[in-house]
């Protein structure tokens, strides 16, 4: 499947290929692959060890690497050993050999002191239902503005006998764990489009396949799997499968492929459709020629990083000539410089 533009001229996804959708229950994931990838970025370290343990210690993230830049993904947890872990309210870039104070970029603290089973080395992502409120509250209010959505989520979890967030993600609930088993991460996959009940709910793109593999399970299970599971619990059982309208076994194959083709066309249309509403884009932090952008729309919000790439295209004045003659007669090559923005990271989610 091809997708030219998702959000007009700003978010160009023409470099990316969209694969065949994978489905489990109401959750559908369209894998995204790319021929180009950058290894300049690496995800969050597994855990940060706090030197001291005051109640409101600053959240400092150091990047000891000399080559790669740490890219802390949007709404991911920053696990802190011997201290309070935090969910981040925005994408953060920590350039090589530098450190950054992320205290102002935290949205929701979570402690591991009372629950012994929580894995400090694990990374979590905010569930979809909390990402919208967290996005709105990122610059003002923080945790207090997140409280109603958090309470609502806890009520829904409690109603189905599940533990509170984020401990529910570590409880090895078989239904929740099954998402990780059923949707496969493909070789070379650098992103995914998520749908719940046929409605687009998220777009995640990572700079490289290795980066995406590191954030895949928190995204699939915590961010999109948990809401999908709650949706499944609340919705009635799916209808029994409808038989194909055939009278002989030999017609069955043709009919099945026809139905598949129809479904494929529907998906292609759904993936290529531009989301409704307007978008407001704000430029943020910059490192080299990479810049973080915050996108706020009526239905979607999130952040993405694009790379401003300069493409030099030589004017082809000797077309049709043999190569040797072309080199002899061409005095000075005329080059045309065009700039192009290539998205290297994106985390966009449905607001409602």
């Amino acid at each position: 499947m091809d997708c030219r533009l998702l959000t007009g001229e700003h978010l160009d996804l023409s470099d990316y290929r969209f694969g065949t959708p994978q489905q489990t229950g109401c959750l559908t994931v369209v894998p995204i692959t790319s021929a180009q990838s950058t290894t300049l970025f690496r995800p969050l370290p597994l855990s940060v060890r706090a030197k001291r343990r005051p109640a409101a210690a600053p959240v400092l993230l150091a990047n000891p690497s000399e080559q790669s830049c740490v890219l802390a993904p949007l709404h991911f947890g920053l696990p802190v050993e011997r201290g309070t872990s935090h969910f981040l309210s925005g994408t953060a870039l920590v350039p090589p050999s530098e450190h950054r104070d992320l205290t102002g970029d935290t949205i929701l603290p979570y402690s591991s002191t009372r629950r012994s089973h929580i894995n400090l080395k694990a990374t979590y992502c905010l569930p979809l239902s909390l990402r919208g409120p967290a996005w709105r509250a990122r610059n003002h209010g923080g945790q207090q503005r997140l409280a109603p959505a958090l309470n609502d989520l806890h009520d829904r979890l409690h109603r189905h006998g599940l533990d509170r967030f984020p401990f529910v993600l570590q409880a090895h609930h078989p239904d929740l764990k099954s998402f990780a088993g059923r949707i496969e991460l493909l070789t070379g996959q650098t992103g995914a489009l998520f749908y719940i009940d046929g409605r687009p709910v998220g777009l995640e793109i990572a700079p490289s396949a290795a980066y995406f593999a590191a954030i895949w399970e928190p995204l699939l299970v915590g961010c999109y799997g948990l809401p999908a599971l709650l949706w499944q619990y609340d919705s009635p059982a799916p209808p029994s499968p409808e038989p194909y309208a055939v009278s002989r076994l030999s017609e069955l194959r043709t009919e099945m492929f026809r139905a598949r083709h129809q479904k494929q066309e529907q998906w292609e249309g759904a993936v290529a459709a531009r989301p409704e509403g307007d978008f407001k884009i704000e430029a943020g932090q910059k490192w080299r020629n990479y810049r973080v952008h915050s996108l706020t729309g009526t239905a979607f919000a999130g952040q993405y990083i694009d790379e401003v790439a300069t493409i030099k295209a030589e004017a082809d004045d000797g077309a049709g000539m043999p190569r040797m003659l072309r080199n002899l007669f061409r005095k000075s090559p005329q080059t045309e410089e065009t700039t192009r923005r290539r998205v290297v990271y994106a985390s966009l989610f449905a607001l409602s």
Partner: protein
Amino acid sequence: MLSHLCTCAEPLVLHRDGKPVRWQNEALHRAAFASDPELYSLSACVEGIQPWQQARILFLLLTVSRRDLDRTLVAQFERLTLFLLTTLASDLVLTVFLAARRARANHRHTSLSILSYLIHNPDIEALVCARPGAIRDCLEHALGRSQARYFGRHAPRAGVEAPLPALLKRAGGEETQIRRLFTALYFGGECEEMHTGVAVPEVTTHGVLVPLLQQFYRVGTSPELVREMEAAIAHRSADLPILPGRIALILDASASMRGSKKQEFAPIALAVSFERVMQAKCPDLRAYNIGGFGWPPAPEGPTDFARVLIDALEANPELVVFVTDGYENQNSGDTARILATLRTLGISTPIVCCRIETDPGETRIEEALEEGLVSITLRTERDFGVAMQILDLLITPQTARERVIDGLRARLMRWEKEVLGWTVAS
């Protein structure tokens, strides 16, 4: 039922409310017992059966009346009761005895089985130390409370010894040993050692064939490996029945069968092992692959059950066997529609789903292939025997029952020769 016996490890629990024991799938057990008591009781000898399922069979053998049963069947029940009492862990046997007490099962054969177990058990002293209350309850249930207590009070007194009750005489054993047991129970004897007799759960291993195939996938082939593998296949398929008829085997070699971490290549290795065993035992087998090709097939590509199922059905087989981990993440729902269509077309070829489960913690919300299909769980190589017996039953239901019963009888006889019975069935 056979699949259930080998997979369900749920213990038999006696609740504190004193009510008769209730367990999940009791109706399934009772229906199987009522429909074919001979096959049901012999299923206690199936390879790979869970101990708690054997305990359930023992419970039914003890609690069901044998008044109207055939003599040969009663003799078989007694042999099987003896076999189960000998092989099961003491904790499980005591639980079954206490469950029989709560069910107020006071048949003669029940009482005699309990008494003979307690009298002839070589570990009875350790058991009395560990669970005196439970053993006292079992004895009083078997012998009658008044009689047991009277005998218990007078058992050790020299000169005025009470005579042995008739039931105890019938149960056999030395009189001094019986009196010592009652003394220990009612006056408290010295315990030599504390022996709890807790049943240790069996460690699940993949046997021989699956690790060899895993090695095949990880490091490649070598002549020694191939030789060992052929020997392992011959060993594994030695006791299995030959499946007549045309069988279509659909092997899922998609990417999901690769497994991960410690279990890498375990699902595909188990599936390929089963395919090799089937090839050895089915003269007319046609294999289809989903995903990877070659031998052994590399686990790669998407899972397209529906297309391969149509391919298999077009060859008009008598039985279709899926060996898969159950994922259908691409073109989800197509197989269910195909199965629904087959019902409308009147095609009644039995389709069996052998589900590979190498990661016991992982379950699925929806099982794409279990829409009205017979399902067999394959966790280790030991499950191949049960799977083959179920397939045998499905493909030739008329003659397979006799073959299965003959096989189980032979197994019981082998066990009886190997394990020296220390209980005496009356």
